[in-house]
């Protein structure tokens, strides 16, 4: 018997047209935004290679001769080399400490039941909802009392503290997706709980750990407010604070192209990470979203 052919209803057509219109508008907006973002990066780049006169005389065009000395000036003469080193030390130290604490914590919270584990899990998640501006003042008092203001260690500890909630939450999602059967099989074979974690679960959950590292690196590399608050001497400034100091200095001596070069130096590492690891970042964001 032939199946009856249902005629398409007008409602279905209207929905499809509306959906198509929405997709077109969304794409126009996204392409426009991409163009704007790419042009901004391009403009900073070409401006960094101009003379200061060209910067104003020929704002939108190419430089006549590329002025690479702007990068030398920004890097060496304005302490961006020192700021860069400070950023590497602080961010690498923070990311390492964050992973050291958050990875085992996330594993335990996602896979092990213990008294009040739900309470602890909730406590961790609540931490994500507290804006750092709210705790900045008491945090400053605490760090000042401990003589940790204007130190790398102090900033590493602050960055670690404010990043743990999100990182634990993110890694919990990863560890939760790992098959329980593997852990059970290992236990049957006599593997200790520590062994299960280090030899089986951690290697399997490494994509999540790497994703957490990437997220934290990107956010802490660009972090400005906390660094400005807790670092008070020029030799301790991280890159974002160094750029702020550079922009203040450059405006008083009219070296706008040196400032542009400084901006490129700050943007490049983050941009490279996004370009090289964008697939992993997106995978990390969506992994664990769908239950098995």
């Amino acid at each position, binding site marked *: 018997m032939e199946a009856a052919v249902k005629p398409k209803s007008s409602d279905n057509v209207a929905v499809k047209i509306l959906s198509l219109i929405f997709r077109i508008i969304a794409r126009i907006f996204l392409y426009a935004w991409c163009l704007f973002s790419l042009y901004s990066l391009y403009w900073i780049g070409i401006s960094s290679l101009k003379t200061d*006169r060209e910067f104003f005389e020929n704002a939108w065009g190419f430089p006549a001769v590329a002025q690479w000395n702007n990068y030398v000036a920004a890097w060496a003469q304005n302490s961006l080399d020192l700021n860069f080193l400070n950023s590497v030390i602080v961010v690498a130290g923070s990311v390492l400490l964050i992973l050291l604490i958050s990875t085992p914590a996330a594993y335990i919270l996602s896979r092990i039941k213990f008294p009040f584990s739900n309470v602890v899990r909730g406590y961790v998640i609540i931490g994500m909802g507290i804006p750092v501006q709210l705790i900045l003042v008491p945090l400053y008092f605490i760090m000042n009392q401990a003589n940790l203001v204007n130190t790398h260690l102090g900033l590493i500890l602050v960055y670690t503290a404010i990043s743990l909630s999100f990182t634990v939450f993110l890694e919990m999602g990863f560890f939760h997706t790992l098959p329980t059967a593997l852990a059970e099989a290992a236990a049957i074979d006599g593997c200790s709980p520590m062994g299960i974690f280090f030899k089986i679960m951690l290697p399997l959950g490494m994509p999540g750990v790497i994703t957490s590292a990437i997220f934290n690196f990107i956010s802490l590399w660009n972090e400005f407010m906390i660094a400005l608050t807790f670092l008070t001497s020029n030799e301790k400034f991280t890159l974002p604070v160094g750029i702020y100091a550079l922009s203040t200095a450059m405006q008083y001596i009219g070296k706008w192209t040196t400032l542009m070069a400084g901006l490129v130096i700050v943007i490049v590492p983050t941009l490279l990470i996004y370009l090289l690891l964008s697939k992993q970042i997106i995978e990390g964001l969506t992994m664990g979203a769908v239950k098995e």
Partner: protein
Amino acid sequence: MKKMRFLSVLLAVLMIVALTGCVGSAGSSTAEPASTADSGAESASDSTSASSGNTITYASMWTESEPQALWLADLAKSYEAEKGTKVEITWVGRDVLNQVKTQILAGNAPDLIDQDHSELSAAFLSEDEQLIMPLDDLLNGPGPEGEATFREVFNTAFLDLYKFQDHDYFVPYNLITSGFYYNKTMWDEMGIKAPQTWDEFIALIDTFKAAGKSLCAQDNDPMYNAYWYYWACERVMGAGKLYAAATDATGAAWDDPGYLEAAKLVYEVSKGDKNAFQAGYEGSVWPAGQQDFALGNEGCLLCGTWIPVELKDTVDSNWEWGYFPFPTVEGGVGQVTDMEAYLIGFCIPNGAKNPDGAKDFLLYISTSEHAQGLVNNALCMHARADAPIPSVLAEVEPYLKNAKSFHLSYDGVASKCGQWNADVFYTYGNQLFHGEITPEEFISQMKAATIAFYANK
């Protein structure tokens, strides 16, 4: 299983400790006021460590790479090499007073602070309280190179301008004045001479328009816009009159016809009348105006002596800096021999750990040899009376040398009446400057707003 339980509890505790960020006792209630992200305020136990006899701590208004900072950094190094005393400089930037005031009140003052004398005075000196040390003993003592007194190294008129209750509180090093800067090469090619009177100045508007340019560039920064009315008041009525009107809570000062006459001068150059400025000046954002001037599109710029440094990389190789003071007005009180003296210098806060070291450093940097460094490297005028003038400011020199009197920049209004300046003067001054209100409207609104300002204070 027991091991797992123990591990899980241990990890959870570690996590809680890490999350609360407990790194020490938080019981003290005497901690200093915390910093904010906007001001980036320093802690009381920050990099300006408690100084000893071998250290001088100095919070500077400059940022690290500015020419003035490089000059001071070199002097600090040579001072340490010669005297064995380290000068620890924190390059705070223009916000230095916001930050050090907290330190002073918390009892952790640096030994030296530098800034514009007017701002130092406004921040640290009041009838009720003086947060900085008088420096009469230093200035009345021997000079850095055997002079009978340190005071005679400077133009005493400068020092007297900033006395407070008959005491000296500052040692200057940088002299700044304001006026019109122009490209002599361009003006010579156009066959134009620098104007001395207001009528000569106004006549140049049409001259430059005929050449396809505007007479003046303007950045539409409230501080730069305010130059025009402040100077107009000075030329019409003399120094001190704008300050008198700013501090008259009754508003009666504004009834003096001189203020209206000054407002008419400003209106005459605005878009509401002859428009001396580049198209769209009322919407310009710094530094577009001054950079456009450096590209040769306008004839002159009313600014301070820092402008040659700010534009040195934009002007072309044929540019020759010229200067003329704000023109005089027929029947006016102020003359070209009445010059502005904006001084940048040092003060020593109360509670400084090493005031003697700080004073010694001030003597050291004030020698003629060291003053030359500021002139040569930063293209700035040093406050020493015998210091040479940088070549880019050569045309300023005769006016300074022949000056019969000096007055504060903005008549002292910007530093001593900061809130009135921002809430009242900038508001209506900008409207007058843009030609949005007439001079009569400006005067009536200034009077009403001044009365309201003091009534609400």
